[in-house]
């Protein structure tokens, strides 16, 4: 298997790439952790409205350390701020937004994504305390569900797989993946390669992908800002 550790995109670069696809006026939920990075790279000429499933829409950035108001937090329980346009609402209304299909996009992390669009991102299947939060709601009902992920696990195993081995978060829900090597759509039960970093060949990319990569048009070079590497 190819060593891809030197050529792969950084998390910031993956987040940057995802941000380029967010349309002006889109309502977007960013998963806790890695996906939250996407907000930093939102293009200035396009305004996205971010939803936090604990009951906040259109919030501002984190306050300076020491100025936190712990009644004003996001789903990751980090302090946020209000800004003109912010609204607060209860959990049933918040998930009415989710379940009712009002979110244009949810961006989440993944343990595994199957070519069917099945997603596993909540349980490693081992012991420990299971926890799901709002992930199952988000993946099943946002209009588009994008995944940010390393292309392979720390041990080098594919995270894009023929079928998920881990417990599912949702079935046939993922529509696009932004990985450390490529941009991949899920269309009709197949991985369809849209973009790849220029430093990996299609053959080598296929070697680190657990199911066939289809193409249905040109594969574009995936170029991200070097400054984020």
């Amino acid at each position, binding site marked *: 298997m190819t060593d891809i550790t030197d050529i792969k995109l950084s998390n910031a670069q993956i987040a940057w790439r995802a941000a380029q696809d967010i349309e002006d006026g889109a309502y977007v939920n960013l998963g806790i952790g890695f996906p939250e990075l996407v907000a930093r790279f939102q293009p200035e000429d396009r305004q996205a409205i971010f939803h936090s499933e604990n009951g906040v829409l259109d919030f501002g950035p984190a306050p300076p350390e020491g100025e936190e108001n712990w009644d004003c937090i996001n789903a990751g329980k980090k302090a946020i701020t209000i800004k*003109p*346009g912010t609204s*607060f*609402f209860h959990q*049933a209304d918040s998930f*009415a*937004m989710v*379940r009712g299909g009002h979110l244009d996009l949810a961006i989440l992390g993944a343990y595994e994504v199957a070519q069917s669009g099945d997603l596993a991102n909540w349980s490693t299947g081992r012991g420990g305390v299971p926890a799901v939060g709002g992930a199952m709601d988000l993946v099943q009902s946002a209009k588009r569900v994008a995944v940010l992920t390393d292309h392979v696990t720390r041990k080098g195993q594919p995270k894009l797989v023929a079928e998920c081995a881990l417990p599912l978060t949702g079935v046939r829900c993922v529509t696009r993946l932004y990985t450390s090597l490529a941009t991949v759509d899920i269309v009709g039960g197949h991985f369809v390669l849209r973009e790849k970093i220029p430093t990996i060949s299609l053959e080598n990319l296929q070697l680190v992908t657990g199911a066939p990569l289809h193409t249905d048009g040109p594969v574009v070079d995936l170029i991200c800002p070097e400054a984020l590497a």
Partner: protein
Amino acid sequence: MDKTIHAPAVAVSQIPDGATLMIGGFGGAGAPIELIHALIDHGAKDLTVINNNAGNGHVGLAALIEQKQVRKLICSFPRSADPVVFTEAYQAGEIELELVPQGTLAERIRAGGAGVPAFYTPTAYGTKLAEGKPQEEFEGRMYIRERWLKADFALIKGELGDPHGNLTYRMASRNFNPLMAMAATTTFAQVSRVVPLGGIDPEHVVTPGIFVSNVIEVADPAQEEELNRAKVVYP
């Protein structure tokens, strides 16, 4: 992002013949009269309309029915002080009526907005309005199953609106408006005043902008009750 548009006509011109429409209001309170009248001017026909009532006098929803633009009405209480327009259309077989208990109507609309395709309610169990509906016992009590209601468009009336579509409502005119905003693909909100972003306290927003497609300022909106007292006929 700026969801404000300048005239009711610009909004309702998007409504095609055959559309399903939710129209806010309980009687005249919260009824978006200017949007309805613009829809009459626009002329879309063969509409399915969801409203609590069936109009009063010869303005608003009653006028829309009088212009024969409504094929079917889904409502809970098609009576009013002056119900002649609906009553005549109904008795002439020109309009179809689906009668739904008021709480079931509200919950079906909320379900449509909240992505809940079906739910159980004790309301109407054992009555004519439960006929043909699945029924089931939970914890010793009987319930019937009801389905969500969705619409292509909602026409609603708020008090304040901002450019992102955040809304407040005036007193009891809230009624069905926030629910219908959730349950329609496209929601047009007429408001008495458009305020700048930040002009509504984040804790006082009743309908967050995610549920609203466009906001149209209609200062000093007409009240159905007052139009009817003045015996106005539209158009």
